[in-house]
């Protein structure tokens, strides 16, 4: 998970810990998925909130259910607004963008696949793209779609596995030391590069980089433990 261990951090010349960090996403989202399905009743109580959000999104997708839309809006709009304001939007612009992000959720609900992304992740990517469009005024280059075969039936077990991984990730983030968590939040939601974070906080760039690296390592370990 979270990319590759790069053997050399060329910007400050330090050698990163080279013990090849496991490429979790493969284990996590393939073998890990099956494993967690077996384990889930014993070890992971389901999170009722994320259950509700998945159900609501599926009701939007399949029944164009406006009550379900209100449910999703009430949960996510304050989060998307917080994200946009931390990226530099004022309250008025942030609310305009929130409306458009939530309308996009409604219109693109057919593309939501609970076996590929959690509701939070999916809405985060829509909000992020809105930020790039409105605040950074850039196009967003997206990767080529994978040449998947004919659309297969959504896999319940996969969706369940992914949901559990997402909950685990949420718990791992909540358990990060405050300083590391702050930096992860800044990296995602301050609209700052790592050098800009260094300028803003007055911390040396090397400190920023190593704290972010430590946070990622910690998350990798948390995701690896069963």
């Amino acid at each position, binding site marked *: 998970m*979270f*990319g*590759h261990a*790069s053997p050399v951090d*060329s910007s400050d*010349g330090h050698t990163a810990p080279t013990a090849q960090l496991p*490429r979790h*996403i*493969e284990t*996590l*989202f393939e073998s890990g998925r099956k494993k967690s399905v077996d384990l889930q009743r014993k070890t992971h109580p389901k999170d009722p909130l994320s259950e509700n959000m998945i159900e609501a999104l599926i009701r939007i997708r399949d029944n164009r259910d*406006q009550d379900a*839309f*209100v449910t999703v809006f009430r949960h996510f709009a*304050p*989060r998307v*607004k*917080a994200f946009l304001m931390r990226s530099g939007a004022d*309250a008025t612009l*942030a*609310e305009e963008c929130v*409306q*458009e992000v*939530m*309308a996009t959720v*409604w*219109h693109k609900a057919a593309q939501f696949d609970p076996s*590929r*992304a*959690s509701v*939070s*992740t999916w*809405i*985060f*990517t829509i909000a*992020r793209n809105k930020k*790039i469009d409105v605040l950074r005024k*850039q*196009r*967003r*280059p*997206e*990767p*080529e779609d*994978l040449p*998947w*075969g004919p659309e297969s039936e959504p896999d319940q077990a996969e969706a369940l596995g992914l949901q559990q*991984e*997402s909950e685990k*990730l*949420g718990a791992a*983030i909540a358990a990060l030391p405050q300083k590391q968590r702050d930096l*992860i*939040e800044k990296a*995602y*939601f301050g*609209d700052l590069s790592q050098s800009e974070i260094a300028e803003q906080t007055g911390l040396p760039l090397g400190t920023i980089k190593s704290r*972010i*690296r430590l946070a*990622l390592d910690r998350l990798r370990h948390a995701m690896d433990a069963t």
Partner: protein
Amino acid sequence: MSDKRPNTITHHLTDELLLGYSAGTLPEAVNLIVATHVSLCDDCRAAVEAYDALGGATMDHLETVDVSDACLDGALDLIRNGAWAAPDRPLVPQDSVLPQPLRDYVGGSIEDVKWRPVGMGVKQAILPTTSDASARLLYIPAGTAVPDHSHGGMELTLVLKGAFSDEDGTFARGDIEVAHEDMHHTPVADISEDCICLAVTDAPLKFKGLLPRIAQRFVGI
């Protein structure tokens, strides 16, 4: 169809680039080279999905900001009455050199690239992105000799066709070199085939920086 493609790519994106792409904090030209590499590399595609999951989970934990009732009313109005033009990607035919993100920027296939000669048989085509970083396609004739050279800022080079080698190894299709200003390399183009790369630089263009490092070396500036 969903079988994993054999992954022959050995030079990947860094954590910093993956995180920045997911967070949406990179210059457009850098996003373009990330999206192009991810189009060719299943490992980095999976890593980007993991970083998106981190973004989603972090957004869940943000301190929320209250939203006005008018905002909800406006959203309901948008879903009931708003026109929705699905921003579908224009279908550009497959191309064995340019993955989709580059076809989007070229507006066609490799045959549609408007090359301009820059000397020694090297050609380039600058792609339209925001000016905080620049992206260009480079065409380098097979076997061109390369003098050692250093440069300013960060430079990313992604091989699309052919190959080059330097102290870090061999870079073939899909491999990305992440070079910083303190690096001194002497890349050598593959003798057997012309090389096409996507090069992105984040430094403001200086007089010597008119060409990315790799092209400077190839043309011997």
